[in-house]
């Protein structure tokens, strides 16, 4: 049959009369399909049952059919090179993550990278300064305690010696 005569004269009328009822029945039996279903259909990797389910959904859901047609055309079209700016923008979407524990070079690089970021660097400097203040204060307090304790010890010792001098026999 020549390509131009493939369609029947009564075809449009027949389909127009039957379409609503048939598509309603198909929609009832066909769940919505997703991008994965359409991709599998496009690649021709569906078994007969899955293919029938997808085709029922395509026939009864205009939006799914529109997406299939557009995706098929896009796959057939010549590929277009993506601008470098798009690649850079896409890559920037994913932040750098902490490397695995065993990777010490990765940790070092991550730590240096964190310091180079302005906000993180300031926060780190603030934390470090706070830690230094606490450390120095603790050291001074501890030193003062040691001095005080040694003074007390000296006084007690002197008193003890004085007691011995005063009344050595009774004490011992």
């Amino acid at each position: 049959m020549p390509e131009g005569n493939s369609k029947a004269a009564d075809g449009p009328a027949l389909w127009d009369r039957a379409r609503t009822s048939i598509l309603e029945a198909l929609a009832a039996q066909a769940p919505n399909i997703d991008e994965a279903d359409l991709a599998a259909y496009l690649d021709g990797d569906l078994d007969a049952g899955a293919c029938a389910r997808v085709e029922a959904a395509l026939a009864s859901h205009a939006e799914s059919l529109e997406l299939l047609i557009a995706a098929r055309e896009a796959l057939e079209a010549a590929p277009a090179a993506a601008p470098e700016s798009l690649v850079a923008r896409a890559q920037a979407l994913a932040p750098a993550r902490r490397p695995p524990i065993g990777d010490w070079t990765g940790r070092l690089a991550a730590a240096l990278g964190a310091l180079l970021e302005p906000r993180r660097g300031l926060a780190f400097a603030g934390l470090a300064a706070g830690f230094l203040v606490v450390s120095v204060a603790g050291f001074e307090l501890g030193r003062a305690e040691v001095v005080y304790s040694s003074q007390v010890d000296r006084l007690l010792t002197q008193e003890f010696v004085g007691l011995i001098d005063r009344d050595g026999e009774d004490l011992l």
Partner: protein
Amino acid sequence: MSEDSVDLKALSRGDKRAWDRFASRYARVIFAAVQYRLGRWAPPDEVDDVAQEVFLRLCKADYRLLRAYDPARAALSTWLTVIATSAAIDHLRRRKAPELALDAVPEDSLAEEPRLQPAIRIPAGLLSPRQALVLELLYRRDLAVADAAEIMGVDRQTVRSMHHKALAKLRAHFRADEPEFGG
């Protein structure tokens, strides 16, 4: 991984280098699909923005969409083409359809068309899904047999065969149900 030089498992664990490789490798697939749908005359910024939306969708919620990808079902480039095309279609719909308050819509445009003929009930299963899809593509979408075959991923003879069988079934049904139609 066949065509993919990207480690999707590492990517979904948050490996930055894997994501960078993925973006570099598949940007052209996503960009090409978006550009094709938006049209060659679409402003470059618009194509870029829609393509970027696709990447956003892919890495959203800890790469949930990418983790759902099953390489056993379809090639990654095919799957990405479908997603990018879907994003482009959504973008076109948002651009074409500004929101209108219901009160701003004329009442007669909301009215239903009166039914001129009684509703026709076709027995379930009279046509197979494939036969229904063929008729929808040929008559509702007004596609040629070759185009319908390409969309369905079958050869032209299959489409012609489905078409012939479907119409034969419908003619037989209407002749039996509505003798006046058979003329």
